[in-house]
């Protein structure tokens, strides 16, 4: 299968983070990924990415602001005319540092909010950094950088979607992403606490739809359904090895940020291969590219060109085999595992959150 052109590089600069969000998409085994690429290696990655056709770069993590060389990396991307998006919790940041990043060519900032209140933020993130986030959002717009507010939705905040939209408007965001939790990483460990009910989702969707119409042209309102309730799987990463390349903090080249949780793969590394060779040649990028790998019912499904068979990581974590049809799909032989999780969501959960942390006992 010939590779298409990748457009976006997801640069996970570090897994370190001051927050401990219960739905973090980073791997549970953070201890195994403590090593980090140095500045020179990231600059090489930027050059190779441009040569491969990359035009967008998401600087993310963990918390990318914890990298001392962030300004240097942004400047390198800008020299290659790559559009840079800083995906951040908003802490730790100062106005001066944000101004330096803008001067280096940073194009846009996305700040995550865990809640609209201090107490709510602490319940999700383990620490209260709400005021610092508000300050970072204000600096972003006052420096003339476009601000996206990102909110991960779950059963404890889904009923307050309207408040999040109002807060994003007050902060003069140009875009608000209301993204329902995807149940991988820490979110899967906390699924019983996080998965909403269908009626919650329907109410929230109506609020988001109304806001989208009202704010058209002023603020983009994106509402991402949780695939557990979508009946058809999401087009994870727009298809395996098709549009995105993720570079993990330790230099693994990945088709998606959770791919290194899949067994039986040898992912290429920045220290051993170029991004171009990884994209075109590496078996790990080839494995689920295109349609030849698909089992039934995907193989003969008329949706296979739009959902690409869904999420390989979800297939593995819920069925034990990454090659299976994503069980979020209503046609999947193992769809019952998702139906069961939905039925469980109708009962009020009693368990406690498990916070993201470095030390994990499994």
């Amino acid at each position: 299968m010939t590779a298409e052109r990748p457009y976006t590089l997801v640069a996970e600069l570090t897994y370190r983070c001051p927050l401990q969000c219960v739905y973090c998409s980073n791997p549970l085994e953070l201890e195994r990924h403590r090593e980090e690429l140095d500045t020179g290696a990231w600059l090489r990655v930027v050059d190779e990415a441009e040569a491969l056709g990359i035009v967008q770069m998401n600087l993310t993590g963990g918390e990318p602001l914890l990298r001392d060389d962030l300004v240097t990396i942004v400047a390198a991307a800008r020299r290659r005319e790559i559009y840079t998006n800083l995906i951040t919790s908003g802490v730790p940041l100062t106005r001066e540092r944000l101004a330096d990043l803008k001067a280096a060519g940073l194009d846009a900032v996305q700040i995550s909010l865990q809640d609209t209140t201090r107490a709510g933020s602490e319940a999700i993130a383990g620490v209260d950094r709400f005021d610092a986030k508000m300050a970072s959002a204000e600096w972003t717009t006052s420096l003339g950088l476009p601000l996206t507010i990102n909110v991960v939705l779950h059963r404890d905040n889904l009923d307050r979607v309207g408040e999040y939209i109002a807060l994003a408007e007050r902060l003069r965001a140009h875009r608000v992403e209301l993204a329902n939790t995807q149940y991988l990483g820490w979110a899967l460990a906390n699924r019983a606490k996080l998965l909403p009910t269908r009626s919650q989702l329907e109410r929230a969707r109506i609020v988001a739809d109304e806001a989208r119409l009202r704010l058209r042209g002023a603020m983009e309102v994106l509402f991402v359904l949780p695939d557990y309730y979508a009946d058809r799987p999401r087009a994870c990463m727009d298809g395996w090895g098709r549009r995105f390349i993720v570079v993990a903090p330790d230099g693994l080249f990945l088709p998606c940020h959770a791919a290194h949780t899949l067994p039986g793969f040898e992912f290429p590394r920045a220290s051993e291969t170029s991004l171009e060779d990884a994209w075109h040649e590496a078996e790990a990028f080839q494995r689920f590219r295109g349609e030849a790998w698909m089992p039934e019912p995907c193989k003969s499904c008329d949706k296979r060109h739009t959902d690409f068979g869904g999420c390989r990581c979800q297939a593995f974590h819920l069925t034990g085999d990454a090659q299976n049809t994503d069980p979020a799909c209503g046609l999947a032989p193992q769809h019952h595992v998702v139906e069961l999780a939905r039925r469980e969501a109708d009962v009020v959960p009693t368990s406690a959150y498990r916070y993201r942390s470095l030390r994990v006992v499994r």
Partner: protein
Amino acid sequence: MIDAASVVRLAPKARLRFDRHRQQHMLLYPERGLVLSATAADVVALLAEARTVGAIVDRVVEKYGEASRTAITRDVLELLRDLADRGLLAEVTA
């Protein structure tokens, strides 16, 4: 609604650039990108400063000829309305 008298300018978040790989113009904005035709790229380049839609049409007509004024007016308005819906135009006044 944008018309000939509207004053428009490209939103600061959008960046026009040439793509050396496919020899085409692209308009990039947060986590998205549009591939532009040569004419659309001409229009977007003119949006670097605030102008009336009428002035933009005049500049494009200069390049492509008076005979195509009607078609150009229609295409420019269509493009600008599409950009406005995406939040890519700033300082839009009626």
